[in-house]
């Protein structure tokens, strides 16, 4: 094992995360308590779900800016299906997940079928899906869901917030798929050289469509959890989510040019951001100061990582 493998980005990030946790714990004795940490897990689930699938998207050299809008659209649709169409809530959720996945699939479709660069395609659907959410909802929010529904966003299972189980499950599945299966291999191959992947008989378009659909699904799942957590739907839900998710992914070492990235890295990136938000707040730093620090940490982490990889081929 050579020193470069040891000093991969993820290792550096892990060291930084531990460092941050130690420093933050020293700042406030309320930080490193199981209760607080689990609660933070609850708060980061929506971004986390989206970021984990975004890792795949970015690893193929793409990007999905429409996730926040899909979240908003699905949230609205669940409300509308349930309240205005009178469907049972379970069916409304199911249908919402289907529509969200289709929204992601549509992204994949215009990207693969028409060759529109992902950034542009999803920039357009960012506006489109948000607009649909606003139009469909006519600015009305839907409230008063049955109690069982809140278990998802506000309840616990075995002392751990319900959604954290989901996040954990999705993270583990995603890590396996990306790291250990032939689908993961295809993802990396497409991100490194799409043409060569196509010439090797990899079904590039299909893989990409599946990944964008999965991204839509993740955003929809996040929508369900979000609605359950805040007990209401609004058409502006999830605004700006895409940038938070992308921050976590690139902080985790996924190359924005594609071909490189891991789920572990993304999870570490998520933990880093959430720990900073929470720990700094507990240490008495205000929200705007925290944002400044997160920005600086993002740049510095990648900078440090780059220093170690100076002559590697990153």
């Amino acid at each position: 094992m050579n020193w470069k493998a040891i000093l991969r980005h993820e290792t550096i990030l892990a060291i930084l995360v531990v460092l941050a946790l130690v420093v933050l714990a020293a700042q406030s004795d309320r930080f490193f308590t199981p209760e607080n940490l689990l609660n933070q897990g609850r708060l980061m689930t929506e971004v986390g779900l989206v970021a984990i699938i975004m890792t795949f998207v970015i690893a193929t050299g793409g990007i999905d800016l429409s996730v926040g809008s899909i979240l908003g659209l699905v949230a609205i649709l669940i409300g509308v299906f349930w309240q205005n169409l009178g469907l049972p809530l379970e069916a409304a959720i199911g249908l919402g997940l289907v529509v969200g996945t289709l929204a992601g699939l549509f992204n994949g479709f215009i990207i693969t079928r028409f060759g529109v660069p992902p950034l542009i395609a999803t920039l357009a659907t960012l506006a489109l899906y948000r607009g649909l959410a606003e139009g469909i909802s006519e600015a009305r929010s839907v409230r008063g869901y049955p109690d069982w529904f809140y278990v998802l966003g506000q309840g616990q299972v075995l002392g751990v917030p319900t959604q954290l189980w989901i996040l954990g499950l999705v993270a583990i599945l995603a890590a396996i798929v990306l790291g250990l299966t032939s689908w993961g291999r295809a993802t990396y191959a497409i991100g490194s050289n799409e043409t060569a992947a196509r010439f090797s008989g990899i079904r590039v378009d299909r893989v990409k469509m599946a990944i964008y659909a999965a991204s839509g699904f993740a955003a929809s799942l996040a929508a369900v959890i979000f609605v359950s957590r805040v007990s209401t739907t609004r058409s502006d839900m999830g605004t700006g989510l895409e940038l938070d998710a992308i921050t976590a992914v690139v902080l985790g070492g996924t190359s924005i040019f594609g071909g490189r990235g891991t789920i572990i890295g993304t999870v570490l990136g998520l933990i880093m951001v959430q720990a900073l938000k929470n720990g700094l707040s507990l240490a008495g730093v205000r929200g705007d100061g925290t944002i400044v620090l997160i920005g600086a940490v993002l740049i510095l982490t990648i900078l440090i990582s780059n220093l170690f990889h100076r002559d590697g081929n990153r």
Partner: protein
Amino acid sequence: QQVYTGGDDLPTNPLACDGTPGTATPMDYDGGTPTNAPDRAGQTLTVVDVPKLVGIGYFAATTQGIMEAAAELNMNATTDGPTRANIDDQITLIDNYITSGVDGILFAANDPVAIAPVLRRALEAGINVVGYDANSEPDARQWFVNQAEFNGIGKAMIDQLAAEIGEDGAFAIVTSTFTTPNQARWISEMAAYQAECYPNMRWLETVEAQEDNILSFNQANTLINKYGDELDGIAGMTSVATPAAADAVTQAGQCGNIAVVGLATPNAMRPYIEADCVKSAVLWNPIDLGYAAAYVLRAAADGTLNPGDTSVEAGRLGELQVINGSEVLLGAPFVFTADNIADFDF
């Protein structure tokens, strides 16, 4: 074409046209209570103020009022809000402050329902919770300081418009977004009151302009261009939209032809009022609002304001009335005109 007249389905309650105060039906206290709150009477309180967002003039003014009161009341207050009017960021922030163990939370909700669970958690943790400006579900906080009742704003706005454009004038509205609860309620009440009291007034259009001053300016301009002489007045529903609309009217050379009324702070409106392009602006004093909120929080923490009370003492503001069970009313909306605007600086 469908004219937007407030987005929600909640019932409206227009005031009488001649101004006879509505008969307030007394209500039982419907707020929440902190569980096992320690005795905080006379203690130094650590309080956090979480407005809808930071970075806009309005909430800078409420903060100012809170700080003023905090100095009088032995409170350490900090303001910390999201940088975007975003329900999730606001919830996360409050959550962190619950963990850090504050004594009291002041909030202005981005969404009444979304914020409720976290506020309930605060109450459970024995924290005193008081809202201002934008309410949450009643049981998720103890008290809410209401700057002006929705129907009061609706009446003041429409009355001002009628006075300037006549009872058969035509007007349009520039608001932030249709999803903003306060604006939606105000617009609903305006529509109800106008239908009741000035049935001949014409409501042309409502446009969205977010909290974006250039967009507000453009939207107001477009309204002027679209309706030409037909347009007699523009109502601005936010402290961003109103001055922008006034600027649009000024730059279009339509001062005197198109009236601008709306919610706005006096500093922002001063140039237009002094130039006699705008006659009036409607608002409560946001500094007073913050000030009152801090006093209510102190009183709730000290146990001097309890469910069932009908008024509360608020420093330089004197006695404030309790309405609707668990709301403290700041007073009637205030109308700034050329005569009094020089007296205010916020």
